[in-house]
């Protein structure tokens, strides 16, 4: 049996024991899943502190909900879904103006030509892109995180975000349009 198959089996066993209320198994799941969960959450959270708070609250909610959760549901997307709900709860409590937004719902003309890498180095472009993602509205940051950090399909994103698949496509399209515009604007 390959290492990955063994890992999958161990993971399934941990998952089963954790669902039955075994705290040690749950703590092992925390160790295994927190790094990836943090990467995804950090991409849509406003800052490091908020990302850490969301991850911690996600695990607390998961601990309370795990015994009642559906047995055959994969753990990782379920955790991401909880994290998104936690983030939405946090953002709901904050004032809307806490979120910088680099644009409204207006569409930007897509330039399918050469990218900004011709005008700046890749490192600079990536740094600018990170800043651009941070300035996107929360729901756009979420689709970017789920698509590019978690590697989810549209179907998985729709399920995790509890949105119709076409809305997810629209959000991603608009997020990318805004990022293109942001990257192609020299004076920002």
């Amino acid at each position, binding site marked *: 049996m390959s290492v990955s198959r063994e890992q999958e089996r161990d993971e399934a066993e941990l998952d089963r024991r954790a669902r039955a*209320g075994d705290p040690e198994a749950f703590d092992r799941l925390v160790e295994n899943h927190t*790094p990836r969960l943090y990467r995804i959450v950090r991409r849509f959270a406003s800052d490091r502190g908020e990302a850490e708070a969301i991850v911690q609250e996600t695990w607390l909610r998961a*601990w309370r909900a795990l015994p009642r959760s559906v047995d055959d549901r994969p753990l990782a997307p379920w955790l991401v879904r909880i994290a998104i709900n936690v983030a939405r709860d946090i953002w709901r409590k904050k004032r809307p103006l806490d979120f910088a937004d680099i644009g409204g719902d207006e569409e930007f003309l897509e330039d399918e030509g050469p990218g900004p890498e011709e005008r700046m180095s890749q490192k600079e472009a*990536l740094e600018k892109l*990170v800043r651009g993602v941070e300035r996107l509205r929360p729901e756009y940051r979420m689709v970017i995180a789920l698509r*590019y950090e978690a590697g989810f399909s549209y179907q998985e994103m729709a399920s995790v975000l509890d949105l119709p698949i076409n809305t997810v496509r629209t959000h991603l399209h608009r997020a990318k349009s805004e990022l293109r515009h942001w990257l192609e604007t020299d004076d920002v």
Partner: protein
Amino acid sequence: MSDWLDDLLEMMPVDPYPEDLAERVQARLALVRRRSRRTRHVLHLVLVLVSIVGLWLILPRAEMFLTSAPNLSLGAFEEWLSALARSPGESLLNFIGTIATWISGLASALDIEFVLGLGILTASALYGVINLLSNGAAQEEVMA
């Protein structure tokens, strides 16, 4: 179709992972578990105390409840059967009269304290059974 922006988004750097985050989560979970254990213990203690109160309310009235019950010895039953064979109508009337006397005796014993005690004991017993069943099922799963 993937374009230059997709490529950049896939390469986007993220803040370094805080190495102690999982430990902090585990510490918070341990705290939550300790608190919920403590709450459960307090709840159990309260239930034991409440059950004692329930028994204290019921026991003094139980004697009246038992003394008002009809005589259910084998001899009395045989006597009643032979009376039933001799004169069925009269025996049935006597039987109904005995039951009615017993019920009225019970009704006088069923004061508010007795009902309250009975309710408390029933609720405690139900909680205990539910708790036992859910703990047993979880334990079985962990041990399997």
